[in-house]
């Protein structure tokens, strides 16, 4: 057997703080062979990024490798001098980062940031480095490389920036590529393109990969091996299909059960969240770290001795760290507690009628010149929301879904058209002018729970303040009572009223956000990407909570999201938006099966799926989202549509084709033609 590219044995990494030593990684082992793509998954804070940085031996001032070895091609990296490390970094081992914008120097042109890599490692001339950079930019599918070379990072889109970072990493043809959540900050369609690119290029160059991610679906699509980390240690590892088909650790199983699959809805495969939260590094329990959160926990077996890795299938390199491997029935299905067939009523609560929202932009911000452009954020939206229904609005960032939410909430005024709610057009009434009843009837759950709570007020006071604002209760005592009920509703202990936001985890903060939104018994709750900032294991719990509360009060929920798996899971009906316009509307069933709008089809195919049995068709969208300041003529999607008809799609607005049961598709292509397409997902 050849020497592995990377071999980590019993690695321990600690961060030294003034008072104590915080162990971030303990007893971590992993082997990456030539041509391997190893996926490393786990919740945030489990130490996966620390492992990646430890390989680079770049842990900052206070990080230290306290035990174990990292071998690169058989050589122990701890014996390397600073100079030897610098020689390896960037040439043998390269890294791709989570936030492309932050990882590029804002004051330097792309060209100088690219050419310095080969100049540094291969001592070639500037001209040669320039030529090679151009070639690499072409390989990462960036149009017009000469122009991009002369650009500054802020002039490029997020996807383009990430392609630059990838080009930079691959310039010296490294033998190991570390990817630290490379697509978390990007849109799904962009993500699909980037993943495809990395996969092909690494094969072409012959690079092994270590892919750090929290997204099991992405790992399944890109890697051939997987290592699951929990609280600083490996809990399960093996070949990817083996692990996905025969999971032998409750944590891996829990992770998989907490993510929705785009083929299944809430009745077929209910989500099962992992209870509790990741222990702090210095509060790890005795025995199995996962014990306190494990549904199969048994005191005598799990919390006595340190659990060791055990072989399950040595041939497929499958190991697991669980003391009950042979005692658990791993194939037992979980049952849904939901009533199947709960139908939302047919009464229309909210009706959007030819709604448009434009923003005027001065051509020159500094002087406010006369030339003005208009951003058409919403163009002629038409749809209804029924009582107790979950209506999802999906699309890439910049498609206008958040603008619509702002208009609905009264944070922006509609430019034209109507938003009818309870026999009143509220599209032109801003939130200051709305009466208390309307304000409390339309509430919002925000995307980022970390920024939406005031850090200097206790949780209880913030909820009471909301109650005051929406006019619930007349005395403080009444409001306190109601606040306690709300805490019960979002399944938080009543003692939490005294807590400050910094004492809560992300999931708990989002629960407070939900409690506030439901404070005034709203009729409509707008949930703007309510779980995208949360960890997978927490996401499931928050989604379940939202669905439960909504069903309890028959609230209408407008669920804004770019994550189609989640949408499939929660929504009754879906509105797909592209560049301010509606591309397709229909029930969830209709949206997720043919006939598709070409854009919906591409969106669906971009979703990474964590199920090895599902095969999906791959449709990659070319190019970036056009600027809303200057939208394409005709059908706005024609510049990226794989089946655009030239001469028609790029000049004439597409007709809205009405199908049965309220399904509409806005496309030139005949419905018969669209119906011929296969389902994106096949078993």
């Amino acid at each position, binding site marked *: 057997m050849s020497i592995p590219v990377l071999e980590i044995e019993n690695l321990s990494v600690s961060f030294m703080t003034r008072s104590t030593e915080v162990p971030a990684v303990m007893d971590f082992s992993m082997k990456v062979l030539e041509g391997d793509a190893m996926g490393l998954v786990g919740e945030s804070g489990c130490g996966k990024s620390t492992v990646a940085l430890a390989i*680079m031996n*770049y842990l900052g*001032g206070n990080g230290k490798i306290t035990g174990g070895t990292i071998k690169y091609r058989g050589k122990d990296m701890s014996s390397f001098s600073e100079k030897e490390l*610098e*020689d*390896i*970094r*960037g*040439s043998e081992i*390269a*890294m791709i*980062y989570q*936030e492309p914008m*932050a*990882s*590029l*120097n*804002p*004051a*330097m042109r792309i060209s100088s940031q690219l050419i*310095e*890599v080969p100049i*540094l*490692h291969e001592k070639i001339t500037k001209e040669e480095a320039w030529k090679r950079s151009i070639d690499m930019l072409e390989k990462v599918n960036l149009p017009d490389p000469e122009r991009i070379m002369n650009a*500054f990072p*802020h*002039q490029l889109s997020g996807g383009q920036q990430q392609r630059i*970072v990838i080009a*930079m990493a691959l310039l010296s043809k490294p033998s190991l590529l570390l990817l630290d959540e490379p697509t978390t900050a990007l849109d799904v369609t962009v993500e699909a393109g980037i993943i495809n690119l990395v996969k092909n290029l690494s094969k072409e160059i012959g690079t092994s990969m270590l892919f750090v991610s929290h997204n099991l679906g992405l790992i399944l699509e890109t890697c051939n091996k997987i290592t699951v980390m929990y609280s600083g240690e490996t809990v399960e590892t093996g070949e990817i299909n083996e692990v996905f088909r025969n999971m032998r650790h409750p944590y891996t199983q829990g992770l998989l059960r907490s993510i929705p699959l785009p083929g299944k809805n809430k009745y077929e495969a209910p989500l099962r969240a992992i209870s509790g939260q990741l222990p702090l590094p210095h509060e790890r329990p005795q025995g199995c770290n996962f014990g306190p959160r494990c549904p199969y926990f048994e005191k005598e077996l799990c919390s006595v001795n340190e659990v060791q890795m055990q072989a399950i299938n040595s041939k497929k390199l499958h190991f697991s760290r669980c003391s009950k491997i042979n005692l658990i029935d791993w194939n037992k299905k979980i049952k849904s507690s939901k009533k199947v067939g709960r139908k939302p009523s047919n009464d229309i609560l909210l009706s959007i009628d030819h709604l448009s929202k434009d923003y005027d932009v001065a051509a020159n*911000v*500094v*002087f406010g010149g006369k030339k003005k452009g208009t951003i058409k954020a919403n163009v002629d939206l038409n749809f209804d929301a029924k009582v107790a229904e979950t209506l999802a609005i999906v699309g890439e960032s910049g498609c206008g879904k958040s603008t619509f939410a702002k208009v609905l909430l009264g944070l922006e005024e509609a430019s034209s058209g109507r938003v009818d709610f309870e026999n009143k057009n509220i599209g032109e009434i801003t939130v200051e002018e709305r009466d208390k009843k309307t304000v409390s009837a339309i509430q919002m759950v925000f995307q980022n729970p970390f920024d939406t709570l005031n850090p200097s007020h206790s949780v209880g006071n913030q909820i009471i303040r909301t109650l005051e604002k929406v006019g619930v209760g007349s005395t403080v005592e009444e409001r306190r009572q109601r606040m306690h009920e709300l805490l019960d509703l979002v399944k938080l202990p009543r003692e939490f009223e005294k807590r400050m936001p910094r004492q809560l985890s992300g999931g708990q903060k989002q629960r407070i956000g939900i409690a506030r939104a439901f404070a005034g018994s709203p009729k409509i709750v707008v949930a703007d990407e309510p779980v995208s900032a949360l960890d997978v294991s927490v996401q499931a719990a928050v989604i379940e909570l939202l669905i439960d509360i909504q069903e309890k009060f028959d609230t209408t929920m407008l669920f804004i999201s770019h994550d189609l798996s989640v949408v499939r899971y929660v929504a009754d009906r879906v509105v797909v938006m592209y560049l301010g316009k509606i591309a397709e509307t229909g029930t969830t069933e209709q949206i997720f099966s043919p006939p598709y709008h070409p854009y919906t089809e591409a969106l669906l195919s971009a979703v990474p799926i964590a199920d090895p049995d599902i095969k999906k068709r791959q449709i990659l969208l070319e190019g970036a989202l056009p600027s809303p300041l200057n939208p394409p003529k005709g059908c706005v999607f024609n510049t990226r549509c794989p089946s655009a008809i030239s001469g028609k799609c790029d000049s004439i607005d597409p007709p809205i084709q009405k199908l049965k049961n309220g399904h509409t598709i806005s496309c030139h292509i005949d419905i018969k033609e669209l119906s011929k397409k296969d389902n994106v997902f096949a078993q």
Partner: protein
Amino acid sequence: MLVFILKRLFTLFLTMLCLSFIVFSLVTIEPNLKKLALNQANMRMEEEAVQTWLEKNGYKRPLLVQYSEWLGNALTGDFGYSTHFKKPVNDVVWPKLWHTGILMFWVLILTIPISLLIGVISGMREGSKTDRALSVFSIITTSVPQYVSGILFTIILSSWLKLFKGVAKAGNITFENFTLPVLTIVLYDIGYIARMTRASMVEVMNAQYIRTARLKGMSFISVVFKHALRNALIAPFTVIMLQFPWLLTGVVIVEKLFNYKGFGFLLVSAADQNDIDVTLACGVVAVILVLTTQLISDIGYAFLNPRIRFS
């Protein structure tokens, strides 16, 4: 860019008009003028005589007329007559400004490189021993007021060690008599700018793109030079530009202390002596300087920070 500069120059001119008008209307309020009249005649003047004096000097006319007369003269380069020095203002202000200019020149030529060096060195390795030592040094130098350090230097270096002279004669400067005033201002300023630079450097060194550069395999030193420096200099650049107007008027204490007859000295005595035309001229000069340095600072900022340039 040219349009930008022209627009800024236009605003500069407008601001100057407004400010000079405000200063003008304040120094020409009646009680002040009466005081001036009395001063001119050694306090022996009847009320009637005061009125005649005001009439004679044209101070009885409407404010706008007086102001436009002053403005007209100022635009042609005539800033009036100094009642204290008994000379045209032009003969008083410009030489003094030149003297302060020389002082400022030496102060800046020493301060900028030294303070940037200190800031960058201490900021590139946050928390190291060098960083702590340099930070303590800069805190000490900024926290000692100039009138204390100035006196200390005079006592130790001049009176006791007899290395330098404690009095600087404007117009005839030598290494001996000019070192102490420069040193006093420089020491104070170094600490201030160095701390700003350090903070900015620390922030940049913790940025992710520095990690990217390091993980490209670049050595620490070349990362500092190629990637960190330019980003780290954006903030101190603004601070340095703000030093110009501050130096012009802030040198008062040092000029007084070392009896160096410069612009600050003049400003104080003009205000003291109720010297209307000199005060006005000084005000105009200060405004021009503030606005010009700000213009330069904006242009330089756009140059250092490409995100500003293109957006």
